[in-house]
Every structure is written in C-alpha cells, then in structure tokens.
C-alpha cells in the first residue's frame, strides 16, 4: 500500500516489461510473478502495480486486451509492443551499466 521507494519506482517499469517480454499476462499474474522473482524484497504492492501498468500503456510500451483467463473469466491481458521491447533493451543496458558502476564503487569501499 505504501509507495515504493524511488529506486523501485524506476526499476518497476523495467521489471514489468521484462515479465511481459516472455508472454502476455493479466494484472494478477504479473503481481504474482513479481513477488516470486523478487522474493518480496522489493516490496512491490499490488496497489502500485496497476498505476504503473496504466502509465506504461499510455506511453505505448505495452498494450492491453480483454481475453478469457485460465479459469474462463474475462481478464485484461497486457503484452509488450515493439516500442516496449526497445525500451526494455534500453533500460536493461542502462541498468547493467549503472549496477556495474555501483557494485564497483561498493567493492572499492570494502577494499
């Protein structure tokens, strides 16, 4: 329920894109996978998931479609757009660069 920290806010977008890169999911599934992957460390609440999804959709990175879910109920499925795929690549590269730099600094401190 609480707002995620800034770091998470930035990475949440990337995580969602990453999850959707594999296959389309609905909101519930995305939430479940987020929890699995991040082992609850990031503490992404379901409350912050939906605004993030809507924002990504409006930026044109993901698109939504109403479909029948596994248990035959109507659910909104999100999938990655071409543009979203590019964005994911960009953010991944970015992330790798930043995290490499940060871990370098952290190690430096330890030494």
């Amino acid at each position, binding site marked *: 329920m609480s707002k995620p920290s800034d770091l998470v806010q930035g990475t949440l977008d990337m995580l969602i894109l990453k999850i959707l890169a594999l296959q389309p999911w609905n909101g*519930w599934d995305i939430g479940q996978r987020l929890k699995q992957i991040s082992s609850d460390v990031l503490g992404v609440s379901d409350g912050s998931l939906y605004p993030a999804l809507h924002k990504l959709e409006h*930026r044109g990175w993901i698109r939504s479609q109403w479909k029948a879910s596994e248990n035959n109920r*109507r659910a909104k499925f999100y999938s990655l757009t071409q*543009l979203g795929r590019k964005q994911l690549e960009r953010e991944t590269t970015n992330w790798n660069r930043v995290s490499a730099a940060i871990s370098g600094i952290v190690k430096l401190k330890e030494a």
Partner: protein
Amino acid sequence: MRVEQWFYSLPVRLRSFLHPNQADQELKEELREHLEQQIKENVAKGMSPEEARYAALRTLGGITQIEQQCRDARGGNVIEDFFQDLRYGFRQLVRSPGFSALAILCLTLGIGANAAVFSWVEGILFRPYPAVAHQERLLALAGTAQGERRATSLSWPDFLDLRRNCTLCEDSFVSKITGSSLSIGDHAETAVGSIVSANYFDAIGVHPMLGRGFDPGDDVGNDSHPVVVISYQLWRNRFKGDPQIIGKAQRFDNVPHTIIGVAPEGFYGTFVGWAMQFWVPASMEETFESGGYKLEDRGARWIEAYVRLKPEVSRAQAQQEISAIASRLETTYPATNRGRGFGLWALWQTPFNNAGTLLPTLEVMVAVVAFVLLIACANVGNLLLVRSFARRHEMSVRLAIGASRVRLLKQLLTEGLILAALGTAGGLLAAYWCRHALVLLLPARSGVAMYLPGEIDGRVMALSIGICLIVTLIVGIIPALQTRNLDLAGALKAESSAVVGARKKAWMRSGLVVLQVCLSFVLLVGAALLLESLQKIRTASPGFITTSVVTSGVSLVAAGYDVPRAKTFQDELMDRVSVLPGVQSAAFARVTPLGYGSYSSTPIAVDGYQPPLEEQPSIEYNQVSPGYFTTLGIPLFSGRDFTRTDDENAPPVAIVNRTMMTLYWGGQDPIGRRLQVKGSWARVVGVAADSKYESMRETARPFFYVPLRQDFVRAPALYIHTNQPLPAMLAALVREVHALDANLALYEMITLQEQVNRSTSPQLVAVTLVSILGGLALLLAGVGLYGVMSYAVAQSRRELGLRMALGASAANLLRLVISRGLRLTAGGILFGAAAALALTRLLGKLLYNVSPHDPWVFGSALAVMAATAISACLLPAWRAARTDPARVLRE
C-alpha cells in the same frame, strides 16, 4: 514525444479521452478481478470467505486511491488537456464579455483587413482569370522597343512568327480589348469585348456552354469570319437567356455577326479589371479597330497576347528563346522591327491591363494591413495584460497548488487561440463581404462592367490560418511573460497600490502603446502623402483645359454611316454646335487624352535627322479636326492650326509638339519641314505645347497631330469648350444630333476633369484604402492609449488621493496624467517618424510631385496623432482630477 511513440499510444489516449467512463469501468473490472483472485487464494489458504475478503482488500490497498492513481498515470494527456483548456478558456471569455468582444473585434479588423487584401492580390494579380486553366504557367506577352521603357503592342505577323517558333510555349493566344456599339431593337449601347486569335477558347481551356468556340481558320482573312461568342451576362441580360440563340445574327458596330457560342457563367475574359462581353476572331479586326487592315502589316502594333509555358519551363528560359526569335525578325525585317523585341511578364505585372495599374497600390496595401494587424495585436495584448493582472490571483493559486508553468502557458495559448480563431473566422467573413469592394472605389463608366473580384481560395485560407497561429502566439505569450515573474507570496497578498508613471511593471503595456502609436503614425504619414499627391495630381495641369471642356461621341458606326455620310454629318454637327449659346469652340479627335483608347503609332522619318543605327523611331499621334487646340486650350507656339481645307484632297500636313521639335529638329522651328507618316511625307505646319497624352505621370514625350480628314475615322470623340453646365450642354447636343438624324444615340458625356479623375483612379483607390486603414489604426492606438491611461489611473488612486490631500489641485493631476500619456505618444511618434522616413520611399510609384519626406505631411500627421492622444487621455485625466482624497485614503 516521438512520432513512433504516438503511433502506439494514440489509440489508447484517444480511447481514454473519448470514452472516459468506459475506461473507468474497465479499470474497476480489472481491479475486481484482481480482488477475486486474491480472495480465492486466501480461501485456499484456509480463511473464511469473510476473512479472505478483508485480507484481500488490505493487501491491495484502497481501491479508490488506486483508481485515482491509475487515472493520474493516464494523465498528461495532451488532447484531454487541450479540450479542458478550451472549455475553460471559453468560460473565461464568456465571463468577461466586454473584453472578449473588444479583443475579437480588434482581431477581426486586423485579420479581416489582411484576408481582404490577400484575396484581392489573389483574385486580381495571381489568379485573375477564374475559369482559365493552368494560370500558374500563363505569362503576358508584349513588345519592347529600344529607348522605350513601357511595353508596346505586338503586330499580328510578329505574333504568328513567335507562335510558330516558340518551342517552350505550350500555347500562345491574342486577346486585345475593344469596344463596340451594340444595337438590339431600337436600343444602342456600348459593349466591351476582345479581339482574339482563333485558338483562344482552346488555349485557355474554356468551353462555351452553348454552341462552340472559333474554328482554326477564323483568324485568317479580312472581315471574312463575322462570328461572335457572347458572354453569359450578355446572353442573360440582353438576349433573355434565349436557348435558341446559336446561329442568330447580331450587329456589332453595325456589321452583322453570327452568334456561334455563349461563354460559361463565371468566365469574364482575360483582361484584369473589366468583364468582357463578347469575343470576335482577329479576322474581324478592321471592323473593330480603326486604322485599316492590319493582319498583314508588320509595322502595325496593336495586339496584346499571352503565352502558356510548357511545364517545368522557367520564364527566363522562355524569354531567352523569344528574344532569339525577336532578333531573327529584326534581321529579316529591319524596316519594321529594328530595335524591337518581345517581353514576357508574370500575370501580376501584366503591362497592358489593370493588373499593372493596381500593382503598386496592392503592394502598399500588403504592408499597410500588416501594420494594422500588428496594431490590433498590440491592442489585444494590452487588453490581455490588464486581464492577466486581474487574473494574477487565479494564476498564483494554480501555481501554488502545483500546476506547472508549462501547463499555465498552454492554458494562455489556448485562450489566445480561441480569440485568434474567432477573429480569423470573423476576418474571413469580412473579407468575403469585401471581395468586390475594390470596384466600388473605381469610378463607374457607362458601357463597361468593372470586374475586380477578390478570390478566397485555399491559398488565402492557408495564409489567414498562418496569421491566426502567429496571432495566437503573440497574444498568448504576452500575458505569459507577465506570469513568468509572478511573485507567489506577493500576488497572493492583497494588491498593493501603485504610483502613476512609476510602475516598473507597466513597461510592457507602455511599450505596446508606443508600438501602436509608432505604427499608426507611419500609416498616417502614408495616408497624408497619398492624399496630398492625389490632390496635386488632380489639380495639376495636364496641358489642356479640364473644367470647361466636355466630351462625348455619336454612334455613327452603329447607325451604319459610311465614310462620305459621316464626313457630311461631322461638318453639319460642328456647324450647329459652334453656334449654340455658351459654346466657345468645338472639335473632333480620334483619341481622348488620358482615356483608355490607344493612339495610332507610326514609324517616322525626318529630313535631316539620322536615327541611331539600332533604333527605328516610332511615334504616337492623334487625328484631330480644326479647332482642337483652341477647344482644349493647348497653345500653338508657331505656325497655324489645321483648317477645313486640310482635307483628303490637300497635301498632308502635321502639327508636332515641342518635345518632338527639340528631339528631331534640334529645337529649330520645323515649319515647312517634312515628316514621314505611315510611309508618306507630310509637311509640318505648326508646333503645339506639350501636354499629357496617356497618363498624368508620364514625362514629356514626342507626339504629333494630323488632320482628321487626312486619316479619317467615322467615330471620333467630340469636344466642346462651353460655359454651360454639363446637363444643359448634353440636352442641347442631343437636340442638335437628333435634328440631323433622330436615330443616332449619344455616348456618355463627361468633362475632361472627369477623364483626368478616371485616369488617376488607382491613386484614389490607394488613398481611400490607406486612409480607411490609417483611421482604423489611429482609432486602435487611441483605444490602446486610453486603456493604459485609465488603468494607470485606476491603479494609483491612493497616490492621487494622497497628492490631492497634500495640496495638489485638480489641474495638477489633470496635467500629470495627460503629460504621462503625451510622453508615451511622443516616444511612439519619434520611432514612427524614423520609421516613416525610411518607409515612405516605398510609396514611390503612387506619389506625384510630393517628396516622401514632405515636412508639411509629417507636421499634420503629428498634429492628428497628438490630438488623438490628448483626447484619449482626457477621460482618465478627468477621472484622476475628480479623485476624492477623503474616500480614497479611507479605503
């Protein structure tokens, strides 16, 4: 945002904008679905349904908040913001209707003036011939001559050679304006038409709505194809829309012509300014043009023509080719073509119709309306500044609760757009109403349908929309600049009182007023210069008497008079007219000075004068009867006037003007010397003073006269020098004419002054338009100044009250406010005078005998501006003087 991103996000943005309820509904459903899943999972974990539900709600957080967050995430929706701003902007405008109406009126005037002038430029200069195909490749074709700055006419054989040899021209055709008398039943009238080449209708892509155009052979031979295509208007008005008209005969200049076609509605021919009523093939030239059969005479230059270039061919390329053709003709026919060339002109520079005469006026108008637009914008800007000051509180609150400055700018621009769009719509409407207004400014003449339409087409629309956007930027950004340095804390506090003339923040408003005064001063100077030169040109002496000489004509040709009968008639009429009471003298002449009719022109030779090798001197002349010089008051310096004995049986004689004497006889008296006219020798019997022949603006040029009897025309104009008023003279003349032949009709009678006025009508148009717009500018500037001053007074009531309490008299305060207003005005006039000194040169062609820096003109413009400024300040100053110190200081 990049284009690519728009591609993906536009559908969803549009959807959430157009169906906000549906989007909300789906969001609710999505969240409910999530909740259901959570509950299901909780139940699976072993909770009771009730418990599971609460737990799920806890995990998810407040549904309403999430919904709002989702909506916010969707936010930043440009379209939605825009429409929200639009709605808000409209509400704001409706809330202050006085302001809105004034602002929209200003913009309507500014944009409307621009749209109207653009539509005239489009309809008169760029796309003058509505129904004609591919006007963008059409050029005017005329002749050039060594030592002659003006374009000349072409001869028919030259035109045929040019048409045959021009490979870059898709088509070329002749269209020479001509007049004719037209009798239907017992009613005779003049009509204006064109003598055209047979390919005319095919070349311009106009197909007669009834019948056909001309056959290829129709322009060959002498009076061999008496066929005519009549205009739609003539068909409707004179022939009552007779569907069986084709094949019927109609007399033009008393020669029966077979009507073979009716031109479609909306086609007015190819002569800027006048609507053509009929078209005849060139083979009928001798019937309509005086001076004999000219289709085989390379020396007779009488036609005007157009060419259409092939696509992708430039004017320069085509000019090169036809110049080459011209120089080949020069070598082949030196006697007629020495020193002669061909010239191509863009349609808007056409030398032989009203495009050329109106061009300088319209050029000036484009600049003038730009000024008016700027002044209108400055005015609206000022109004907006006042309002933005009043809205400071609103803006501050919006900023305080988190609106970004960009968002506020967008809001202000949207409001500007609303104003500009309404102004543009009003302006286009005004331009549409004014599209035929130019004709009203030109003097009417009988028998001629003036046609000077404005054309509001895509290009004019696009230009107006462009102006609309520029205006939007200007009027949106001016108040935005004010909010830029909005001091939040200060603005939220109560407005502090101000001091007259000491407000730093007022610089922008003052600057706008200075700009307005400056621009309107320039327009005032321009209008005054034009007015003075119109005055001068209309009172200048053309070299002949204008006020007591009237001119008219008798329809001898239409009545079927042959040459001997016409000669007798002219003699008899002259005898009768000269003895009428009040008539001092009377005469005939073929061409009226300063009229549209063109003089005859001939290559000349003079005994003892050797022309430069590359030049074949060619001079214009008029055919006049005895008494012409006395009647028009043109002095004869030496020799004698023509007499009745200078007739067809006497040896040819001529009277030359003074410039001709100077040029060809070295200033020595040429009486008794010989002059070759049209190949035969005439003896010079007199020297007349120079006068104006075609235009008041022409410089002295050689000219001569021959006796009417020795170069006879059946329908000369009649001139009467009389002290009778025009209606009485007309009645007397009608009586005398009818005494000779009751069937004859008289043409319009006017004074020669009217003739001068008609010939200077472009100047009148310029004066009228610039004066109207200058007055408008003055009014706007006055309103602007008034606005600034009354606002300053309203803002500084405390200070004024204080001054009064400390002993200032009402007169002191009056002076204080007026001097502040005059300081602004003085600044504006200073800049305006500097700008006017630089800009009035552009009026060049429209000015006559007036220096663009005429001190009297600048002085009177200054006086008018100052008077306007004082009257604009008077009311605010009076209000300041009436300040009640006790009340103001208590507030």
